[in-house]
């Protein structure tokens, strides 16, 4: 009989994954498969020999967008739905502390995203093999890994907001972070270019505070048969782990103080 915190986190994560499956979250894969199949079959003629590049472009961008959709809309509901439907009452009467609950829910959604992204990547790989681009098919996987890391960060942002805000506002805030996160490097450059010391401090602070999602962006390069190097993959992993740990810690601190009326 194993009954430590890790065991409970694992059980909660698996149940969250089961919830996502039963709530038909993975149905988006059907749409994705149709998109990739159509790209592989139809775009060959239209793009004049660049069909493989187009498949990678469409495939990786769709992976990110579909994944972001799940991260934001399922992520903000992970905690708030449990509170609204009062399912937390029975859970917290068991020997489950709030940190285990948050981390378990988070990992459950990450597992869902992993399956989602992996199935999509397999679809893109098959489409690339179909159009005879085996080298590109093998090369997209590190880029897919970076997309997964980005989605993990976005899910942590969604959980953080949902630990204290309404689902609608949490979704809005998380979407804004997603957009700004891709522009954060530009914000810093803007701060330097403006010439005002105050603007520089503010925009630099925003740069460090918000997730730098451009670190995980390698989709255009992947379409040009480039592969992210080890430094980018390791650096991205370290950044994601630290950033997620901070976000979840703050979410746990906020959630641990909440009253469930």
């Amino acid at each position, binding site marked *: *009989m194993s009954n430590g915190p890790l065991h*409970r986190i694992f*059980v909660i994560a698996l149940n969250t994954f089961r919830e996502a499956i039963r*709530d038909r979250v993975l149905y988006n894969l059907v749409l994705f498969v149709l998109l990739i199949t159509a790209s592989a079959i139809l775009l060959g003629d239209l793009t004049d020999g660049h069909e493989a590049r187009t498949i990678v472009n469409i495939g990786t961008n769709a992976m990110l967008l579909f994944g972001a959709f799940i991260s934001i809309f399922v992520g903000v509901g992970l905690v708030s739905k449990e509170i609204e439907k009062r399912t937390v*009452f029975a859970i917290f009467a*068991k*020997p489950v502390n709030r940190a285990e609950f948050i981390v378990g829910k988070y990992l459950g959604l990450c597992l869902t995203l992993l399956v989602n992204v992996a199935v999509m990547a397999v679809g893109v790989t098959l489409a690339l093999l179909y159009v005879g681009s085996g080298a590109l098919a093998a090369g997209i996987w590190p880029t897919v890994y970076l997309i997964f890391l980005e989605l993990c960060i976005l899910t942590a942002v969604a959980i953080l907001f949902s630990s204290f805000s309404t689902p609608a506002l949490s979704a809005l805030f998380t979407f804004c972070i997603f957009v700004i996160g891709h522009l954060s490097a530009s914000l810093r450059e803007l701060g330097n270019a403006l010439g005002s010391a105050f603007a520089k401090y503010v925009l630099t602070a925003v740069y460090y505070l918000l997730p730098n999602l451009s670190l995980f962006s390698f989709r255009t390069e992947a379409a040009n048969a480039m592969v992210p190097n080890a430094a980018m993959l390791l650096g991205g992993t370290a950044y994601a782990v630290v950033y997620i740990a901070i976000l979840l810690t703050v979410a746990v601190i906020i959630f641990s103080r909440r*009253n*469930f*009326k």
Partner: protein
Amino acid sequence: MEYIVEIKDLSKDYETGFWRKKKVRALDGLTLNVRPGQIFGFLGGNGAGKTTTIKILMSLLFPTEGSAKILGSDISDVSMHSRIGYCPENPYFYDYLTANELLDYFGQIFGYDTAKRKQLTDELLTAVGLEEKSRSRQLRKFSKGMQQRVGLAQALVNDPEIVFLDEPMSGLDPVGRREIRELIVSLREKGKTVFMSTHILSDVEALCDEVAILRGGRLAATGSLSELLSTGNEQRAFELLIGGVASEQMRNAVSGINGAKVLTKPAGTAIEVQNESDIDAVIAAARTCGGKIISVNPVSLSLEDLFVEAKNR
């Protein structure tokens, strides 16, 4: 252990209003002790603070003031939850799971192996009277009564030493209520403690060894049922039932007796007097009017009277 639940000066304020500056006191300095091995009834009207108290004990709400212990551990100690069970009021669970899966899930939380979880799930769902054909249906298709039964079953997954039941009979039909009453009694027979809040006074009279009555967030009365009822009965009224005479005539005849109340009942006219010494005067008045004495009885205090008295005090 003398007390399995020890509550000391427990208070809870809810912040309301847009800026959350206004405070409403839901629980006000509650001090209460519960002995092990009994069924403890926690009574009170709507908004009396029963659910707030139970939620504080379950660490779902944080008290504004005061402290509480369960099984000798402070309520903030989550590890103590492995020895307790809780069924919330109007329970609701993951509606994408079946009853079997829900109990299996909670069994996993407690770290039980597959065989034990299967055995527990079967035993508990049978004990709460959930039909076998319903057990593999998703909970979203369950009626309120069926959800209540699943709620009770999940509260017992870990064979708890004490189980907290918030309105456990809510949503159950008369047969279901009787089954759950039997289940609660069987828990006491196994040496468990049951802490239950309820509005249904007949269940309290049938089940509870001790009760506490809350009013406006404060403790209005506590003790064993027999103790509370006998204390209240020390100075009770008497009721005389008189036949063969009109109520109006009797009303005039007893108008001189201080505190006498006249009620028209199907069997005759009932006269309630506050003092035993007034009985003879009423009998004399009845005879003067040509009435017949049918019965003379002390008006004993029921739990309902006690409940109403505590509410109005």
